[in-house]
């Protein structure tokens, strides 16, 4: 006979509740995994038009078209590894959705370009805070030896106290200068010139005092 005897309080109901909640728990975890997976894809990210603008340069980059056949999608770089970290990133990232709905019109290319530096600086800081963890998903620093003598040295001795993003930025999205040399005024003038706007319009758009020109992004 069965030597294991359940204690008194484990009634049939309790067993049932445990099994059901266990199953729900598992389902929840599966859903989270699936949720994190689905919300890390390029297809999901670009459902917002503003992200389509960001994806354009990405599709020209080597992280999209790698000769090795490996493609890093949005989440591979911008969402942490691990269920909890990934879920947290997505929860925190939901502020982007809030801003997309209630903030400036990021779908407008001009508004998008004017805000690009702030987004870039925030993203770089995010990488730095995590010691470029998402880069390291694919790149193993210790074995970067390249074809020339110094490459190994640069990535070992030469990289002490540095993390990937310190040197390797502006690889994928629109070129944004380093934060310490960034000049907002010059950036604004460049965007105005790019979209043939009157000087000073950029500041007004940023303050919400002027509407950005009615521009639609290129249709794919």
């Amino acid at each position: 006979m069965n030597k294991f005897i359940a204690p008194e309080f484990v009634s049939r109901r309790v067993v049932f509740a445990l099994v059901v909640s266990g199953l729900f728990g598992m389902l929840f975890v599966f859903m989270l995994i699936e949720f994190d997976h689905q919300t890390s894809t390029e297809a999901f990210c670009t459902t917002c038009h503003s992200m389509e603008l960001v994806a354009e340069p990405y599709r020209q980059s080597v992280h999209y078209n790698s000769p090795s056949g490996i493609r890093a999608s949005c989440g591979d770089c911008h969402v942490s590894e691990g269920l909890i970290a990934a879920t947290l990133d997505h929860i925190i990232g939901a502020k982007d959705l809030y801003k997309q709905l209630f903030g400036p019109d990021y779908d407008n290319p001009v508004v998008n370009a004017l805000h690009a530096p702030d987004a870039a600086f925030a993203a770089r800081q995010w990488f730095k805070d995590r010691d470029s963890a998402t880069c390291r998903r694919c790149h193993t620093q210790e074995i970067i030896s390249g074809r020339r003598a110094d490459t190994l040295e640069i990535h070992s001795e030469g990289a002490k106290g540095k993390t990937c993003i310190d040197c390797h930025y502006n690889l994928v999205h629109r070129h944004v200068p380093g934060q310490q040399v960034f000049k907002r005024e010059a950036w604004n003038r460049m965007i105005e010139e790019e979209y043939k706007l009157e000087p000073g319009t950029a500041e007004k758009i940023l303050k919400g005092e002027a509407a950005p020109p009615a521009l639609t992004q290129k249709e794919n």
Partner: protein
Amino acid sequence: MCRSRSAYLFLFLFCLLATPVFAAKVKLDPSNWGLEAGKECIKCHTKTSAGIVSQWQDSAHGKQGVNCMDCHQAETSDVDAIEHEGYTIATLVSPKDCGRCHEVEEKQNSGSVHVNAVASITGQRRFMTEVMGNPAFTAASCDQCHGSVVKVKGDGSLDSSTWPNSGIGRINPDGSKGSCSSCHGRHSFSKAQARSPEACTHCHQGLDSPDKEVYEASAHGRAFASQREQMNLHADSWAAGKDYAASATCVTCHMGAAGKLPSNHDVGLRSAWKLNGPVSERHHLVIFEDDTKMNLAESAPKPARGDLLKKVDGSEAKVKVLVPADRRRQAMTQVCLECHAKNTVSGFMQQFDGLVEGFNSQFAKPAQAIMLGLYEQKLLSPKPFDEPVEQTYWSLWHDAGVRARHGAAMVSAEHAGWQGMHQVAQLFYASFLPQVQALGAPAEALIKQHVLDQPEHQGWLQQADRPAWVLGVAEGKSTDE
């Protein structure tokens, strides 16, 4: 007033004579260079741009411990500052940067005609871009010698329509003018390279300043080509006659040390004539109180010390000293005298002046007066180059005329003659005058006024029935006699 001017002249000449005969040595203490941060750069750059590193290592800079950061350091507030592997640097090194150590050269150069090379072609450049319709033309041609106005984009990168550029009058992001690397090729900065004619002739050749062709055909060019090894080009001190005597290069005459004359990075200092305009004129050198300089035509009203005068770039400044054209000629003569006898030199100068003056009076001035008359009487549209006579006039003074005058300046018989005055005369008599004539009676009146009635032209234009054997139809008959 006159007395005070001569006093300044004396002072100026005294300064010329009192300075040492070779290029100023860097007087800074070596503790001023060799920045710690700059020692890191080559770790990567021996890999990513090995050529640059190896040039630098073999250069005087490399040997003295001047490293990448000494020249490329930048403040975060600099418009062209970029963040590069944790350091704030600038790609473009301006004369201001070089001048931190090479103070004397920077100062001399910053007052020279070279640094105004952008302002001096503003009109031509506009024609090239606007009329010919393509800014890419100027970026790849004009700007490569004259210099671009370097544009820094809002993302800190240098606009590719203005960079890369090593034009001699480049307008830099820090506001300075010029580019040392135009002659002192980076990153070896070789003395020999800068002293060689090639340092100058990559720009000074072709239609508007045919110095390469003229120099190569001259006695100096021929001697240089065959005796380059005797030119001592790598020497520290490089005074003509003392450190070398095999030949003269562009630098020898226009910048180099010779006898008591010190070397000077103001390249136009010793040139008395302006040789590449429609009509040549001798020019004085105006030195302003801010130490910038400007050529001033001899015919212009002579300014006195303290007078306000408009500079090439349009701004105004107070005149400090006026160096007359004669003094500039004297300085040039001093170089010649290191290798040539006094009479030879003065004889040569007279031959040179004679050709330029003849070109002026016989062809340049009458042609210019006729052109002005044609525009005034609206016989030509104001638009340039849409009528054949405009193209002829341009070829007359610019192509052939510039060649003839340069040929005389540096003694190339070929360029002074067949490719110079021969073509000037051909264009003048066989194209220019007939094309003017075709514009009708008022135009013919202009020819009479400016050509036929002038004594210089009565030689053969007025003697239609006088045969000459020179054409070849009556060879051997001496019909000229």
